[in-house]
């Protein structure tokens, strides 16, 4: 896998606080599409048996999606977030399948993948601002937690029980 610098920030979710209100999803769809719709969002609320789980790309330091893309469409942005270059993407969804938390979403317009870019240029991502339960946090990773900074995706995934992992559907409808 291609090594790359650790991301400066990441959106971390606390599933125990999430009430499943979908407000983060609507804020995201408004930001990027100018519409309100769950399918237009880059952050997803997964329904689990015992609650809700917000999932969003955590910009892993060793992101498997970067290597698996046959069209080299996955790109690292200046803020170290990973997103899909729509011009290069061929819509094979390989990045979605290989992501351990199925973070890439499928654009309803292009049917290609799209990923959270941490609202590049904004002080704080819209989803974090919209969350009334404070279940989402936008955290600087460099000094707060070395383990998180090394690979937030992997770290976060380890917190999930196998039962919860099994409930995360790999592909969006």
């Amino acid at each position, binding site marked *: 896998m291609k090594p790359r610098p650790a991301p400066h920030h990441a959106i971390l979710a606390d599933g125990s606080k999430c009430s499943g209100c979908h*407000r983060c999803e609507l804020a995201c769809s408004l930001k990027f599409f100018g519409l*309100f719709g*769950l399918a237009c969002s880059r952050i997803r609320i997964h329904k689990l048996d015992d*609650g809700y789980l917000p999932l969003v790309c955590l910009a892993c330091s060793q992101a498997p999606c970067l290597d698996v893309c046959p069209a080299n469409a996955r790109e690292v942005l200046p803020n170290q977030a990973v997103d899909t270059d729509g011009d290069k993407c061929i819509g094979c969804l390989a990045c979605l399948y290989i992501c351990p938390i199925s973070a890439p979403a499928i654009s309803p317009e292009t049917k290609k993948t799209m990923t959270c870019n941490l609202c590049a240029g904004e002080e704080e991502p819209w989803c974090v601002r919209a969350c009334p339960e404070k279940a989402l946090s936008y955290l600087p990773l460099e000094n707060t937690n070395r383990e998180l900074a090394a690979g937030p995706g992997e770290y976060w995934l380890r917190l999930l029980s196998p039962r919860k992992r099994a409930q995360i559907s790999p592909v969006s*409808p």
Partner: protein
Amino acid sequence: MPGWIGRKLTVNLTDSKAEKAPLSQAHLDSYLGGWGLNAAEFSRAGSNQGLPPPDGAVLSLATGPLTGTLAPSPPITACGVCLPVRRKPPEGSCMHLNFGGDFGPILKYSGYDQLVIAGKAARPRAIFIRDDEIDFLDVSGLDRRDPGEIRAALRRDSAGKFSTLLYTGLIAREEDRSELALLDDRGRLIGGPKLASVFADMNLIGVSLTGSGAIEVYDTEGFRKIIGNDARVFPGRPCPCLSPAESTLNSRRTGQRPTAGQNPIGAPESGIWFSLFPPGPRGFSPAALSHEEDLPGLEENGKGKQGLLADSYIFGLFGLCPTLLSRKSRREEIDLLLDLFYGATGRKLTREGFKTRLGEILDEVMNDENRPD
């Protein structure tokens, strides 16, 4: 059609047919949404073409122009869904109520502003609406009393992330009593036995909804500005309907379901806390809206009884929950509401025009309503 989808879905359980009909801009402008659309559906004086056979129950769920948007208050997906019901006995009586949750928004995302269900199925049925695709499933094999089994079955057949449910089942009312109720995807109580009995009359077990569409608003930038920058809109308070109650959090920690004492009417299957919206409109007068500054502060949040009842109407019409607005006065609240209405639909509505129209709609609702207590 900004703020609206412009379509109505009518489902007839008797012959398992579904019909999609357009809703005109003039009709939507005239009835504003939610209760207004339902009043039009049920009103004897209104446009009741296509009214289902009068000898059975009819259920109409209508959304408002702000339903499913990031409009203020409840964690934004709060909906203004109304459930007027006409059934016997008494003949022609009509019941209206609001409920929150994600059924309303997802109804719009699936491409409909209004869902009307009528007729009676020969065998227990569940309706599956996946955007344009409507299916009827025979669920005779399910235990109709067990909400957990019904929810699991409906979820299994519609496991998408953009889905929600409305279904009936027996819930624990007291330690030794149970009653039929209408529940949503979270296990929240939507309606009590009277409403659930309408489902039972129709032989309808539940409705599963999947919506992968989106809602367009008229003035995206204006709307974005209001919800992003306006201190009136983002009080940062979670919605009481959706937030987990202490009993639910305890049950998550301990792995035990809340008892009837902890969660008096709660759905034992999920343990999710719920709240019913304030009592209905009986006794409300539209005149309350003309005394914005004089509302008595009976409630903790500073709203008076009349204000609460007025809220119930506004919620039902526009599709937003006003309980969490950080407003100082009724005047400010209505100004904000009209700003949002304009941002969503592009229709200018003056304060006076709104009050007049609201009064007319409510008169229509009241005339058609004979709510049993």
